[in-house]
């Protein structure tokens, strides 16, 4: 990494560490630290995180998945440094090893402290993964997002491992977490499945290409918009 890139990385790191969301009482600000596998993009693992290597400083998601882990920071208006946060109900969201773990469905206040006392709060809903949405996120790229029963994106690093598969051996799927890259010969179609725990979804894709002699994967793309992906799932992929 060149000197210029390191400078940008430092600027991004400083910006990323700044809590960005005011608490309910206005006494301080909360931040959300994405739990990816550095230096990988944390958004591969946490749907609440914006893409980027330094995926910190995001807004605290309104909903997180049961079993997911996440980290919330707090800075009181009355101080300059970050101070601890805790859960109002450890039986629903537990604090373990500096991270929160969502144990069961419910609504919980995450409380930011100042000098050891509760100072401000933010509500987080914990919900089960009810469905998965797969969308094309770029040329040859797919992205799976866990959703609650009210179709809200569920944040947190999930307890389950994402599993991707395809019905056509001529179409390959390479995945990192909830993101996948599809390659294959032009004209090939396949149903691509994404699964996390016991919830799955599928999308029908067709590889596009200009030449018959290949170059294969790099210009691969799904010609199925997100809506048709959902339709595909209705044809039988959801219980994959």
């Amino acid at each position, binding site marked *: 990494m060149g000197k210029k890139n390191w400078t940008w990385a430092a600027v991004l790191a400083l910006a990323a560490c700044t809590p960005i969301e005011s608490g*309910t*009482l206005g006494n301080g600000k909360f931040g959300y630290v994405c739990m990816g596998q550095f230096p990988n993009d944390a958004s591969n693992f946490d749907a609440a995180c914006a893409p980027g290597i330094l995926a910190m400083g995001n807004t605290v998601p309104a909903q997180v998945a049961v079993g997911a882990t996440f980290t919330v920071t707090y800075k009181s208006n009355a101080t300059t440094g970050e101070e601890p946060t805790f859960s109002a109900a450890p039986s629903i969201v537990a604090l373990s090893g500096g991270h929160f773990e969502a144990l069961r469905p419910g609504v919980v206040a995450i409380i930011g402290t100042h000098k050891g006392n*509760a100072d401000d709060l933010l509500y987080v809903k914990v919900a089960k993964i009810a469905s998965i949405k797969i969308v094309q996120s770029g040329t040859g790229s797919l992205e799976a997002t866990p959703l609650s029963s009210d179709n809200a994106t569920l944040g947190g690093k999930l307890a389950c491992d994402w599993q991707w598969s395809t019905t056509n051996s001529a179409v390959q799927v390479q995945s990192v977490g909830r993101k996948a890259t599809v390659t294959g010969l032009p004209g090939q179609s396949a149903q691509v499945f994404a699964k996390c725990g016991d919830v799955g979804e599928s999308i029908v894709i067709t590889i596009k290409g200009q030449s018959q002699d290949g170059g294969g994967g790099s210009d691969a793309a799904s010609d199925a918009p997100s809506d048709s992906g959902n339709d595909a799932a209705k044809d039988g992929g959801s219980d994959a």
Partner: protein
Amino acid sequence: MRKLFFLLAIGCGPTVSFEERTIASQPITSTYGNIETWSLTEGVAVALTTRPNDAHVSFTADDSTIVRVQETSERGTFIVIPTSPGTTKLHAHGDSQRIFTVNVKAQP
């Protein structure tokens, strides 16, 4: 004369009230403040405000595993933390000497 001063001192002492509030985000509701019995939900912490906000008040619960109340960095604003289901007495100390009954319901 001494008795008169004593009575005046009591009569002119600070009168502290707690803002009565009902927060309803179905299926979760919370009712608390200037009423004898508070109804809260496990995990759903709420803000409590005193009038006047410069009164000296602190709280202790008979069972702190059910509810805790802590004053924030903003004077006169407290956070009530219902940690687990159950019923307990909450005692206000200082400029207020009230006792509240707090019922904490489990999450629906």
